[in-house]
């Protein structure tokens, strides 16, 4: 496959079957390998779409500075696109994220401002909004409320899934900005009204939920509950167990959030199998495991991995 540039190669990722983890020939699991994107995560789609849209809207000029709250992957993707297109990027990132993410951001030329660990990404959003107010010239694409984020998945991820798996019955993805689920979910629902759109949401350690009051909670502006069929909360133990199972049984080396998504997908598969219904369940492999090696998730017992992840933003 030949492309004019790296940015032209975003998307078009493989969908691979999981012959060992699928419960039967009638209930099949399919992994969409988003780690095959240029910076190694699903976020390249949203980053490219948001920057391209901002250019069309006349918000960006050569040398413009972008500001974005991110726990990692969106920042890394934005940094790559921004560098290609001649913009500067400043990321506001919670300090309890893996060191690989900071190294990658800096390699692609981004500057990092850390936000406090307590409160996780909520804090990063709050801090970024404050900084944005003081620097009105900077452009905040704001992945949580930018329609181009969801639209990227409506226009690319969704159609790719349907073309590769016309018999799709379930689509499972992680719930962060909600862009993947909203965009691909809407597209699939329009084409197949009965398709189930299922969210797997990481459940972190207590530090991450350390808000001062409940009114500081956060629901992304992009989120539309009516797109989803169901939503599951997956803790680090199940996420790590499934991440390891995916590598062990199918050879796929994925990040920890993918383990959480696989956990939900396997639950749906077991339910379909029990009811005797056929199912083609597609799920997103958000990224590879490389960026998380230092977290301790890939070594030792499950108990040790779970303890190591306590307090970290692992998805």
């Amino acid at each position, binding site marked *: 496959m030949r492309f004019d540039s790296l940015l032209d190669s975003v998307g078009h990722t493989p969908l691979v079957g999981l012959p060992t983890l699928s419960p039967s020939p009638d209930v099949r699991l399919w992994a969409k390998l988003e780690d095959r994107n240029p910076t190694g995560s699903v976020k390249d789609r949203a980053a490219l779409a948001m920057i391209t849209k901002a250019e069309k809207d006349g918000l960006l000029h050569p040398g413009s500075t972008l500001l974005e709250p991110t726990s990692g992957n969106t920042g890394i993707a934005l940094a790559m696109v921004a560098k290609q297109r001649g913009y500067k990027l400043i990321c506001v990132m919670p300090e309890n994220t893996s060191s690989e993410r900071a190294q990658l951001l800096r390699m692609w030329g981004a500057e990092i401002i850390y936000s406090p660990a307590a409160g996780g990404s*909520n804090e990063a959003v709050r801090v970024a909004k404050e900084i944005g107010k003081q620097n009105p010239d900077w452009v905040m694409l704001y992945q949580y409320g930018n329609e181009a984020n969801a639209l990227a998945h409506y226009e690319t991820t969704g159609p790719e899934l349907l073309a590769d798996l016309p018999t799709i019955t379930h689509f499972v993805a992680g719930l962060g900005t909600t862009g993947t689920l909203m965009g691909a979910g809407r597209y699939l629902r329009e084409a197949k009204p009965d398709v189930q759109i299922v969210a797997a949401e990481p*459940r972190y350690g207590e530090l991450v939920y350390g808000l001062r009051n409940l009114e500081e909670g956060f629901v*992304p502006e992009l989120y539309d509950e009516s797109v989803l069929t169901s939503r599951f909360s997956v803790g680090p133990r199940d996420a790590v167990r499934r991440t390891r199972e995916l590598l062990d049984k199918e050879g796929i080396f994925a990040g920890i959030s993918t383990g959480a998504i696989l956990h939900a997908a396997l639950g749906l598969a077991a339910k379909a199998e029990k009811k005797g219904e056929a199912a083609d369940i597609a799920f997103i492999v958000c990224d590879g495991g490389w960026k998380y090696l230092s977290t301790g998730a890939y070594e030792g017992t499950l108990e040790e991995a779970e303890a190591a992840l306590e307090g970290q933003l692992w998805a």
Partner: protein
Amino acid sequence: MAVEVRIPTILRPYTGGEKVVTAEGASLQELIANLDATYAGIGERLVDESGLRRFVNVYLNDEDVRFLDGLATEVTEGDSVTILPAVAGG
């Protein structure tokens, strides 16, 4: 009919610091009423006139109750209920 309820840090002042408490009821609504009877004030932090508060997520055995029957969701002995504030990802 005792059900285990996990309380987030932010609501533990109501439960005397307890992380996990037990409550009784056949539905989530009854369960919350029962919680409020034991830990006065916790109920209104979770629900308002329109139902579950916007930044409160409640999971029955890890599934978001908004996609089950909301406050009318049935609970049975041995179920586990987790309350969490809504947080950002990405």
